[in-house]
């Protein structure tokens, strides 16, 4: 689905934050990506949805090298990859329901109101459908972001520290939704530094845990 082939990235010339990263995300798999703050978890995720291009090596998404993609191709790629950002951003002038349906709107699809209501119900945001994003709590924002990320039924869902600002109960609730997505056949990659969350989730889903350390990517130890 998406492969990193000796990929590296540096924000400054000559100094790579990430280097020689090799990874293959296969259909239906659940991955955790962990590592200390500033290790490059967000950067790696940005490489996967073509927000950044590798400074070395290659990123192959759905059979295509990201370097060869035009702007419209990248837009097409992002419709196949749902992303939940750490600092989830919405269009604050539109109600939650319209924000969640935005990927459909901008890709020219009609909005099925019944399906939209079902989706909002799944993330338990039915009552907030007409609320504006600034009025949502942190947990509600993350669940709205997850609903927006999956409305186009993407092949891959990336979540960047989705539980960063949430309490334990809300974190587990969100994780439960991601596990349900994986069980429905979606590939999921969650970047988090919360090892307890990873341990709790692994009790429910067979997940591979990757760790970024010293700019490289490795499988986590037996403790995870």
């Amino acid at each position, binding site marked *: 689905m998406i492969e990193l082939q000796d990929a590296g990235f540096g924000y400054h010339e000559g100094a790579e934050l990430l280097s020689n990263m090799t990874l293959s995300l296969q259909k239906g798999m659940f991955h955790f990506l962990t590592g200390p703050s500033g290790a490059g978890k967000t950067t790696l995720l940005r490489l996967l949805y073509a927000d950044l291009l590798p400074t070395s090596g290659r990123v192959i998404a759905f059979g295509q090298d990201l370097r060869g993609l035009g702007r419209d191709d990248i*837009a097409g790629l992002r419709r196949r990859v749902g*992303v939940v950002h750490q600092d989830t951003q919405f*269009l604050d002038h539109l109600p939650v329901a319209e924000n969640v349906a935005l990927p459909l*709107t901008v890709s020219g699809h009609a909005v099925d109101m019944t399906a939209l209501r079902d989706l909002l119900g799944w993330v338990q945001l039915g009552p907030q459908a007409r609320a504006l994003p600034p009025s949502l709590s942190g947990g509600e924002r993350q669940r709205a972001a997850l609903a927006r990320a999956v409305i186009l039924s993407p092949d891959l869902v990336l979540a960047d520290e989705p539980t960063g600002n949430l309490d334990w109960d809300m974190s587990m609730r969100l994780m439960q939704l991601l596990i349900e997505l994986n069980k429905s056949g979606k590939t999921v990659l969650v970047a988090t530094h919360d090892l307890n969350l990873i341990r709790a989730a692994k009790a429910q889903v067979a997940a591979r845990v990757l760790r970024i350390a010293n700019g490289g990517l490795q499988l986590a130890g037996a403790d995870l």
Partner: protein
Amino acid sequence: MRRADLKALRLRALWEGLVGRDGGAGERIVPPTGFTAQLTLFAAAAMAFLAVFALALALATGRLAERWSAELAQSVTVRVSAPSAEQASRTQAAMQILLTTPGVGEPQLLPEDEVARLLAPWFGPDMPVDALPVPALIDLPIASDDFDAEGLRLRLEAEAPGAVLDDHSQWRRPLVSAARGVRLLGAVSLLLIAATAGAMIALAAKAALAANGQVIRVLRLIGARDLTIAAAFVRRFTHRAAIGAAAGTLLGMAAVALLPDASAAGGFLTGLGFRGWGWLLPLLIPVVAAGVGFLATRWAALKMLGAVR
């Protein structure tokens, strides 16, 4: 504008911009922006108001040039100057020549009272014109292209001394040329007005895009193409340009309608206005303004979006 931009140009988007309202989901992705909205409306209205006058000027001078050109081609005058004793015989000789000149109608000797009326503005009504050595004036209508002014001039010189052919060209041609120049000026003014309106709308669109950087970032991350993002801005600015221009055009037309009537005063300036079907022409201004708004916003949006990854 790149070829790809032109290829992606959709007339449907232009039409939607003209008739649509800012209520659809496509437009709603861009938050309302008060300042740029008012700037676009005002710029379009002001430019349309000016365009109405430029159009009226171009049409009025066009009419004037055509009328003068037509009159120039319709008749000539033969002026016979001679001592009083020979005036009648020389006039008669000139008339004989004119009667046998090909391509002309029947020559008409202007009566003395008509000549006196023509001279009155210069000498005053009390001047005894018959006491002056006033030349006889013969009006000669031109009937066909066979008329040879140069040939007639030479014949008069040889056979009717003192008779001079005046084809009015000396004083009318510069006026016709000036009128055509003013008409060209009006057309250039229209182009400049369109270019200025386009520049102002492009600036307003750029300001709106810059103010909505966060919105654009979100839209891109969820898979919106540049064309989709640009279309939201394009429709909004096309709509505003058309509405503003329609208001400016109506005001301009009302102002032109209130100008003094040409027939009342008779001068050129009072003839500045529209006649008959000409009143329909200003109604094209809002359509052109919408087109200018569409192209200017589209160009600005795609250029700006293309510069940011």
